[in-house]
């Protein structure tokens, strides 16, 4: 599932702490601004708190970069995907790996595979719906933030027309205003939103997004980056030694248990 086959650097060439990074001796990691709960806690990735922050530090360590050698920068979505040289070594902000995207940038192996979930409120059209057919039948209007897999789920998997928002804040407001009936986000975010941001919020259920071509979140690197192989190896190693599972357990444990819509 890794897109690193075409990456030049063989894994054996990864000398700890001496990769061909943007800035020698340092590892520059980018994330979004703001970075959201529970991926990063309090928008402070430097603290290592939050799922993606923890993953980033784990990968860094695997690559031979201590906490002090890691530098965080913020990037916009466009800044991450634009052609040309990048100012980060890798970028993580829930980028789903797809083959189409892999033509433009490199991805590591996936570090997490999130299902999508529909957030709504008590008494909405979607309250009580238990399967995918029910969503369509309810004539529900679903929203999602732009540049997310959630959007693909609505359009290609449910075959509905989505209301597309700049970010989850817009979607949540529209949901509160009952301008949409449900907001599709990844499951961890869904738990946060339904619990904290939406009065009487509910999670209608989760949807396996694989059918929409989603093969999980990967670390994003510049196309043909010399370190893609090393990073992928690091992620693979972290997966096999159980580190990622532990991190998932720590930050995303309470995100299981929503009914699966089929």
């Amino acid at each position, binding site marked *: 599932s890794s897109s690193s086959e075409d990456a030049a650097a063989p894994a054996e060439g990864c000398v700890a702490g001496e990769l061909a990074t943007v800035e020698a001796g340092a590892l520059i990691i980018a994330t979004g601004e703001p970075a959201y709960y529970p991926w990063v806690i309090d928008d402070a990735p430097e603290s290592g708190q939050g799922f993606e922050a923890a993953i980033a530090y784990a990968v860094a360590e695997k690559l031979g970069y201590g906490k002090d050698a890691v530098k965080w920068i913020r990037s916009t*979505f466009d800044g991450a*995907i*634009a*052609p*040309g040289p990048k100012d980060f070594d890798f970028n993580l902000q829930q980028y789903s790996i*797809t083959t*189409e*995207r892999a*033509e*433009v*940038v490199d991805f590591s192996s996936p570090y997490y595979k999130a299902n999508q979930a529909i957030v709504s409120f008590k008494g909405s059209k979607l309250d009580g719906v238990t399967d995918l057919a029910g969503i369509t039948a309810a004539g529900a209007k679903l*929203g999602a933030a*732009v*540049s*997310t897999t959630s*959007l*693909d789920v609505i359009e290609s998997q449910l075959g509905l027309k989505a*209301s*597309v*928002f*700049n970010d989850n804040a*817009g*979607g949540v*407001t*529209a949901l*509160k*205003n*009952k*301008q*949409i009936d449900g907001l599709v986000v990844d499951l961890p975010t869904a738990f946060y939103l339904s619990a904290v941001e939406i009065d009487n919020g509910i999670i209608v259920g989760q949807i396996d997004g694989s059918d929409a071509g989603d093969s999980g979140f990967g670390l994003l690197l510049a*196309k043909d980056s010399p370190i893609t192989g090393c990073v992928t190896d690091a992620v693979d190693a972290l997966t096999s030694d159980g580190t990622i599972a532990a991190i998932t357990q720590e930050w995303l444990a309470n995100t299981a248990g929503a009914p699966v819509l089929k």
Partner: protein
Amino acid sequence: MTSPISDSENWQPSELERRRRAERQRKTQKNVLIAGISSVLVLGTFSIILVNSPGWISLRDTFFKWAYGVEVLPKVILGFTTNITLTLIAGSSVALLGLLLALVRTSRSPALTPFRFLATIYVDVFRGIPMILVILLIGFGIPALQIPGVTNEVLILGTIAVIITYTAYVAEVLRSGILTVHPSQRAAARSLGLSHFQTLRHVVLPQAIKRVTPPLLNDLVALIKDTGLISILGVTDAVRAAQIQTAKSFNYTPYVMAALLFLAVTIPLTRYTDRILRRSMERQNAQGLT
């Protein structure tokens, strides 16, 4: 008084005049040639630098991947219909309300002072605050009020927000046009017995609007694009459609397709208006050499 053309229908330019015309033509041609060649040279150099730069291929593939562009075009066109529909609706309302506001602001009647004051505040405020906030306030704020009977349809609310903002801009453009019409024109119209309204209708506005047509077109073109801002409310316009595709593919060609759609509408519009304007000016003005 002056002789009709028949007098000199068989008039032939003198030898001197023929030489002069030839020379003038030669000179013009030479200058046009110089200007043309230098333009081509400059543009050519840029193109060559562009095409031979190390990153050209990757840039081309990211921004100008035509096959992909054609593939996403239907989606972008679908979004574009939103821009066009909103422009038609918002455009006409903006024209009307902007005109009203401009008339209030340019009126001199002391009785209208409070309205003039309000109109000034309106323009200052709604021109000055980011349109995105107006759209958020109207599009998300009004439904949040839960006033019975008031729509929470984003298309309607978004259009209202666009109208509110653009009215401020267009009012200023029209105001400037109205101010350029010399007071003696009003005096003449009123002295002919035309009412205040008739004077505006037949004398002031025809001259005013003609004079500010270029900035009005600016605003129309900007409006077509800015109707897309209501995409923050969840409506998909051409740029949003492009953005969605780009987010999927990490390729910017959809934006270029959106731009081409915009140009396909705005350029003919601009050229057409410009031609009408130029014709009317040519008919109206005596043209000397200056």
